[in-house]
Each structure stands twice: as structure tokens, then as C-alpha cells.
């Protein structure tokens, strides 16, 4: 009987694949790697994650991003990072990672007055 193996990856933690690898989840569907796209909408602002797409190389990833994510004047600058280089936190760690901070409101810088002259805080 055929043994079907399903592999699940955390977001971004996609291992390098070799063409001979039979459990490469991508090879059958799409031979092009996945890229994460970051768009800066205005000078002076940060690049924000816009989404992901497939492309054969970095240049194509940037052009695809231009066509997919900036058609409605969303951006002035594009970064592309191959998804396999992004490492994600494990959802199972959520409790120990994030919950301890919920009762520590004193960490918010809201307990002193800012002068009016200070902008963008």
C-alpha cells in the first residue's frame, strides 16, 4: 500500500528541497520558490509585509511584486525575501512567549507627559 506522507511546516520554515526528494510538497504543484514581499508605501515609513508570491529568482520576485502588490499605488519600494529564510516562532510557545507581558502595563510609555513639540510618538 502506498504510504502518503504529509509534512507540515511552520510559516516560513520550509526546508531546502532537492529535486529527487519525493516528499517535497512544492515540486509537484509549483517549481518556483515562495517569496515574502515587503512594500514601503511612503518615504520615511517602514517596509510592511504585503504578502507572498512565487518567482524563479529575486529579480522576478521584485517584478512580480510590482505587478501584484503595487498596481494601486501602494508602494515606492519593494523588498523580497525568499520565504525559506524566514524563521517563525512556534505557536505552541505562545503561552510562555506572550502571556507573561499581559499584566505588565508599566512597560507602556504612557505614564509621563510628552511636550506638544514631539511628533510621531
Amino acid at each position, binding site marked *: 500500500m502506498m504510504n502518503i506522507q504529509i509534512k507540515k511546516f511552520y510559516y516560513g520554515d520550509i526546508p531546502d528541497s532537492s529535486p529527487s526528494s519525493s516528499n517535497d510538497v512544492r515540486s509537484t504543484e*509549483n517549481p*518556483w520558490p515562495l517569496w515574502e514581499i515587503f512594500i514601503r508605501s511612503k518615504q520615511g515609513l517602514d517596509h510592511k509585509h504585503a504578502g507572498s508570491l*512565487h518567482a524563479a529568482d529575486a529579480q*522576478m520576485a521584485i517584478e512580480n511584486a510590482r505587478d501584484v502588490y503595487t498596481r494601486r499605488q501602494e508602494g515606492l519600494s519593494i523588498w523580497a525575501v525568499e520565504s525559506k529564510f524566514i524563521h517563525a516562532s512556534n505557536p505552541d510557545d505562545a503561552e510562555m512567549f506572550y502571556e507573561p507581558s499581559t499584566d505588565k502595563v508599566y512597560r507602556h510609555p504612557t505614564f509621563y507627559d510628552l511636550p506638544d513639540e514631539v511628533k510621531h510618538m
Partner: protein
Amino acid sequence: MDSNQQISKSTNLQINQTLHLADTALILGQRNSDWCAHGPILEQDIAITNITLDLIGQARNFYQYAATLINNAENKNETEDSLAYLRNEREFKNFLICELPNGNWAQTILRQFLFSVYQELLFEKLIACNDQQLSAIAAKSIKETKYHVKWSSEWVIRLGDGTEESKTKMEQAIDEIWMYTGEFFIANDYDIIDVTSIKSKWLEKINEIFEEATLSVPENTFMQSGGKNGIHTEYLGFLLSEMQVLQRTYPGANW
């Protein structure tokens, strides 16, 4: 329009020049639009569709200008829509290469490459021409065209210098459509710029990209022509009947 003695010869030439530019952009846009939802991959589907929308946008600008010229010269009420949807095959002045079937992806991107390189050089000249409106439309459109050149060049290189199969498909595409490029540089009485003058620059760019793509430029091939004068291939009639059926069946239908 041709039979109307009241229009001065120069206005008539100006109208035909504008219609040639409009028809060329519209027909190539209409052809490329067939790829919508059929692209080889989602991202490239969007890329070719964007290019299509750019071309149809250019066509609209040229048609609006042509309609103004016609209405000023004659007591008519032409619009961009009437010019696109209610003229017949022989009145269309687009290049033959635009009306050819898409073929496979290689053929589509090769056509886009050969055409966009020409269009960029043409727009450079048009920007400097003495028709202010055409100059303005060219100045606006050339930014789009530069991207079309970049995008299509990279695909030509990717496929030409790719696998054996992709290279074969590029070579077949060259065999299929190269003979329709000669028409780009055949001067016509309505040309506002000297199209023969851009041939060497065009060939230079094609050679540069083909060399990188390990493809060769055909030499001494027979060149097909006629589109600029309204003499078309058998394909245009079918394209028009599909594109125009709605306006012809329900005249004046609106979104």
C-alpha cells in the same frame, strides 16, 4: 472619411496617424487579454494583464484624440467607443503582428518584446514631434513601455537561455513572427516621424537581448506588411467580430 473632400489633407493624415497608434495598442491589448486567467502562473497572469491594461489605456488616449480631430474636421459625433467598436477590418491600421494569435507563452512574450522595443523608440520620437497631444500621450505612455521592455526582455533571456525545450519554443516563435517586424519600419504617408530612422536602434537592442538569450536574429527573411494601410491577415476579422459583437448587437450599450 477618405472620400470627404472637406477635410484638408494634413488633417486627414493626422487622423490616420492617430488611429494607427490607437489601433495598434488596442488590438495587441485585445489579443493579450486572452491570457487573463490562463497565464502560466498567477503572478505572470497578472503581469501580462497589467501590460494589456496599459495598452488599452494608451489606445483610449489615442482614440479620444482621434475622435476630437474627426469631430472638429467634420460634423460628426465620434467617440473612443465608436472608433474602437464600429469600424470595419479595412479601416483598422494596426500592425499585423498585433492581430496574430497568441500562440504559446514563448510566442506571446516574444511578440511583446519585439513590439515594446519598437514602441519605446517610437514614443521617444513622438515626444519630440510637433503634435502636442501625441507628444503628451507618448510622454505618459513611455514609462509603461519601458517596463514592458524590461519584463519581456527578461522572459526572452529566461526561455532562450533556459532548457532545450524552452529554447526550441523561442526559436519556433521567432520563425513564426519575425516576418511581421519589417512593417514597423516601412514609412507611410501619414507617419509624423521618420520610422525608418529607428530601425538600427531597434535591431541593436534585439541583438543585445538575443545574444544574451543565445538566440539568433534571422537574416534576409521575407517581410509581411499591409496593416498600416488596412490590409490585414485573416485573423483580424475574427478578433473584431468577438470584440465588437456587444456594441453591434446592442448599439449604445453602456456599463
